[in-house]
């Protein structure tokens, strides 16, 4: 347990964060009462199945959910509240203090502007540099993310680059203004496995350079390779968090255990059957009253059906389960 003694405020602190999508009959909860902190220069991986709310969380941090997403709760970043902050203030944070990297580099870059223009634009928007100085900074940034022949790339358009190079450009754009937090939403999902390793290396480097990382992924291996901490989302709620190695080695939430078991280790014998978690996660519109995982959970108790288990911390780890697994226990 942390004491109230002069611990510095974390870089990012989410408190009771909820995101509601749609209106009226079509209203659904994408994210429900999520609390999470991230220290400066720390690397946190956020995992979960599609529809668990990972991307909504990433978008909510920078206020990018659009008018359809209504955010409640609190997002404190660098000591200031972002939920409900006026748009001009959010604009000063976006790009400058929080860099965003999106999933599909093919469509995340503007097709009609050159790489150089799109990079320099960030500096110009935040009054850091303009003209030749901004271009020089763009060139230096492309070098830093190891884009080959960076001077020529400045004048090229996104469609002239490969997918991996585009993602490097997107990362360069997110880092060019020197943000303290990088939010990456499935940054390698659209890429080949061989390209993926190089991109992940860039994230590790950004972390060592002092930029904190929130990495959203459905791939445990990616998170295990890059992050120090992991947070597991299920049906819009945080079910477990803690240090990556500890959580994957001894998962306490049955869902995390299922995820870890479903992951194909390199030393798995070929004839061993693939393990899948039986059943489907509940849709966003049809969340049950109690624990959303109860219907699929081999350990569910009667109370799980109507009571939502709170996230309870123990040391560096926390789990939201009435019947958590003990060390080494299998679900």
């Amino acid at each position, binding site marked *: 347990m942390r004491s109230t003694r002069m611990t510095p405020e974390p870089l990012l602190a989410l408190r009771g964060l909820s995101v509601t999508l749609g209106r009226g009959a079509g209203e659904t909860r994408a994210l429900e009462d999520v609390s999470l902190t991230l220290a400066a220069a720390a690397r946190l991986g956020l995992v979960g199945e599609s529809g668990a709310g990972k991307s909504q969380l990433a978008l909510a941090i*920078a206020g*990018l959910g659009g008018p359809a997403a209504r955010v409640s709760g609190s997002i404190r970043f660098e000591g200031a509240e972002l939920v409900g902050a006026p*748009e001009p203030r959010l*604009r*000063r*944070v*976006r*790009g*400058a203090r929080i860099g*965003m990297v*999106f999933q*599909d580099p093919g*469509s*995340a*870059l*503007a*097709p*009609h*502007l050159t790489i150089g223009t799109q990079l320099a*634009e*960030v500096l110009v*928007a*935040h009054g850091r540099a303009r003209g030749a100085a901004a271009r020089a900074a763009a060139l230096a940034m492309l070098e830093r993310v190891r884009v080959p022949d960076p001077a020529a790339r400045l004048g090229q*358009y996104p*469609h002239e680059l490969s997918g991996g190079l585009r993602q490097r450009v*997107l990362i360069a*754009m997110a880092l060019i*203004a020197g943000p303290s937090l990088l939010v990456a939403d499935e940054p390698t999902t659209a890429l080949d496995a061989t390209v993926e390793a190089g991109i992940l290396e860039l994230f590790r480097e950004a972390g060592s350079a002092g930029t904190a990382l929130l990495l959203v992924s459905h791939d445990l291996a990616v998170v295990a390779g890059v992050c120090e901490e992991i947070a597991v989302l299920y049906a819009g709620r945080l079910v477990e968090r803690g240090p990556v190695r500890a959580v994957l080695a001894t998962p306490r939430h049955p869902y995390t255990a299922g995820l870890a078991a479903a992951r194909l280790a390199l030393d798995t014998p070929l004839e061993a059957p693939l393990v899948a978690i039986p059943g489907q996660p509940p849709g966003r519109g049809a969340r049950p009253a109690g624990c959303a995982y109860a219907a699929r959970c081999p350990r569910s108790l009667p109370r799980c059906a109507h009571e939502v288990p709170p996230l309870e911390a123990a040391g560096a780890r926390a789990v939201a389960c009435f019947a958590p697994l003990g060390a080494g226990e299998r679900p």
Partner: protein
Amino acid sequence: MLRYVLGRLAGAVPTLFAVVTLAFLLVRLAPGGPFDQEQPLAPEVRANLDRLYGLDRPLAEQYLRYLGGLARGDLGPSLRLRDFTVRQLIATGLPVSLTLGGLALALAVGLGVPLGVLAARRRRGLADRALLFVAVLGLAIPAYVTAPVLALVFGVHLHWLPVAGWEPGRPADLVLPVLALALPTLAYLVRLVRASVLEVEHELHVRTAVAKGLAPAAVLVRHVLPPALSPVLGYLGPAAAGILTGSLVVETVFGLPGMGRFLVQGALNRDYTLVMGKVIVYAVLVIGLNLVVDVLQALIDPRLRHPERP
């Protein structure tokens, strides 16, 4: 880029050639001829006329002669308005139509694009609904209704503007025809721009632009508008050709001596040369404007500059 422009230019020549050939054949294939009148001409008079205009020659020869004349910029004499050459008739009509059309086009684009953007920004708001309603009305009410209504209200009742007529140096003559001519295009542009802006705003690169911390104006001007205006340009090419060559209706209602005059009469009377001349002017405008549109679209979207590559 230069190579692209030259390539498109080279591609336009066969198109124009095909248009001329097709128009020539279509005009000739229609039954009847320029000298069929209520009172049939004496056979020898008719034969003389046919000989005079070369209509007694085989069709292929007439075609080649016409092409030869065209290459020298000679469109031939009008077969029905015999005191004029087709060039003279076009030379009097075209400036009127171009002035009128140019102003109407400027008005339609100058108002239609900003209003379309406004409607998209205020999506489902009051301004959006009001603009869409007016735009649909503008499309639904044909020019031959708006034109006389405008003339009646502003000309006959209010006496603000002349009802009809065309005298050089009287700009007031232009106001009502330009308005009537611009209205349908303006209405269509509002809808098109609105739909296009909304479509582009959903694209992921716009979200990236917002995530970079760009101001809303910069997002709109630099990231949304260029791709959104590309389809708008695609519509404007042919539309501009239509407007610039003059609206038959507006010219008829306001009694303007533009390009539309004599086209219908000319075609009904088989005034081959006159109809051909006007069709060629129109085709040159359409092809030329489409070329301009293609180049502008390639300037906006670099992917279009290499059409052979996917």
